[in-house]
């Protein structure tokens, strides 16, 4: 497992007065590793996403992705957020196809191969259980379905790196657990690298290979914990003693941060 994402002593300040949003972050993420980042709110988790995706350059230090220093938007990235941010004037299928209209090499031959791409998008929608909804508009879908579509949109151009910023935070508990499994299955199938930002510790432990705990602003990495629960993991796992103990342990760390 070579290093796919490499942070070396990274600081990022949005403006000069505000101080650093994250500070002295060093971490390595292996290829097709599933990483979760947890921490109290406002700890710079989202900042982290902007750095990895190349939307912002670090103030200090270097960020390398796939062996190259990040100097601008990386086209091998897919992103999904807490809000599904689907375009209401496009059907679900067209929403999922959007990245292919923008990212090369798909963009160049999008018109020719539209049928082929649509087929791919359909297959992807089917893996998340959205078959039959391709022609519906986002506002005709429930919140959970919108989020599934949003994840499909993040994956349709077969990115090497999937960035998820609290993607399940706005959903009810049952839908959330359902989508954990959807994400787990997609990841098992395609083996992309995932960085999941969340403040749900159970979610982090259930899904990730490695969990990082970040401190309050300025965000620093306080703890790196490898989750040794064997895969494939089933939802049942979340009721095991080992699982609960791990969650507790992380919970204690977060509690300490909040108090300090």
């Amino acid at each position, binding site marked *: 497992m070579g290093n796919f994402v490499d942070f070396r002593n990274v600081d990022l300040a949005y403006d000069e007065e505000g101080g650093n949003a994250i500070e002295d972050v060093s971490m390595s993420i292996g290829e097709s590793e599933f990483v979760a980042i947890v921490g109290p709110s406002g700890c710079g988790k989202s900042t982290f996403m*902007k750095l990895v*995706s*190349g*939307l912002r350059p670090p103030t200090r230090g270097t960020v390398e992705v796939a062996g190259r220093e990040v100097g*601008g*938007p*990386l*086209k091998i*990235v897919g*992103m*999904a*957020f807490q*809000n599904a*941010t689907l*375009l*209401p*004037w496009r059907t679900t299928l067209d929403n999922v196809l*959007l*990245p292919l*209209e*923008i*990212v*090369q090499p798909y963009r160049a031959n999008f018109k020719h191969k539209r049928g082929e791409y649509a087929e791919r998008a359909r297959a992807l929608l089917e893996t998340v259980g959205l078959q039959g909804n391709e022609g519906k*508009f*986002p*506002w*005709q*879908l*429930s919140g959970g379905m919108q989020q599934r579509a949003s994840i499909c*949109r*993040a994956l349709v*151009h077969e990115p090497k790196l999937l*960035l998820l*910023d609290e993607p399940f935070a706005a959903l009810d508990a049952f839908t959330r657990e359902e989508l954990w499994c959807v994400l787990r299955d997609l990841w098992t199938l395609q083996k992309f690298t995932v960085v999941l930002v969340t403040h749900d510790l159970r979610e982090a432990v259930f899904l990730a290979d490695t969990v990082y705990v970040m401190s309050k602003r300025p965000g620093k990495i306080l703890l790196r914990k490898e989750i040794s629960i064997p895969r494939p993991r089933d939802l049942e796992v979340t009721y095991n003693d080992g699982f609960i103990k791990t969650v507790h342990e992380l919970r204690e760390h977060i509690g300490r941060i909040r108090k300090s």
Partner: protein
Amino acid sequence: MARKRTLETWAPWMALGIILVVWEVICRGLGISEFIFPGPWSIVLSLREFAGPIAGHAWQTFWTTMVGFAIGIAVGVGLGFIIGSSRFMYNALYPLMVGFNSIPKAAFVPVLVVWFGIGTVPAILTAFIICFFPITVNVATGLATMEPELEDVLRALGASRMDVLIKVGMPRSLPYFFASLKVSITLAFVGSVVSETVAANEGIGYLMMSAGSQMRMPLVFAGLIVISVMAMVMYEFFAILEKRMTGWATRSMNGP
């Protein structure tokens, strides 16, 4: 239920009918002179009597308004695009625009007359300057209020500024744009008629002015009614167009 529906659709017509009857009764009952405040019936009579000239003037007003409105759309969309797509331009131009908009446009007509003489051109230009502002503001708002996450999704894929504007910004600002058309078309009529009353030999504004100076009040009121009907028809036209083009924006409100 169905009966309630039909009642609702007829409600505005019934209200109109009641107003007309009350109006007529007041005028006749109090014996108000036609030269001061004509009743609906005498207005109808003068509409019929002068149907030919009224139609000619109405056409003049209609096409000058539409030309001014078309220029207003072009300039309004262009400016809105510039202001909405760049923070810098927004900061630079928005205060100026607000300042310009607070000038009473009627006060601008004499200036236009000095520049372009009496007639159609000032009417077109007045219609234009009075109607482009709402379009600009709405298009700019539609572009400027894009969700930052969505922009991130696309930018991370290497989308250029233009890509983001075309794929997201423009469709997103369409409902705002169509909403502004409804407001602007009525304003455009105000502009052209104001200009015609001051400086023209043609058009409904001119007709009302000259009829007024001859104390033919029923004809003045007939002009008013013709303008309001034209403005209402165009408003309705753009309202229907809005519904057809951007149904997704209104339907999403009562979606799940």
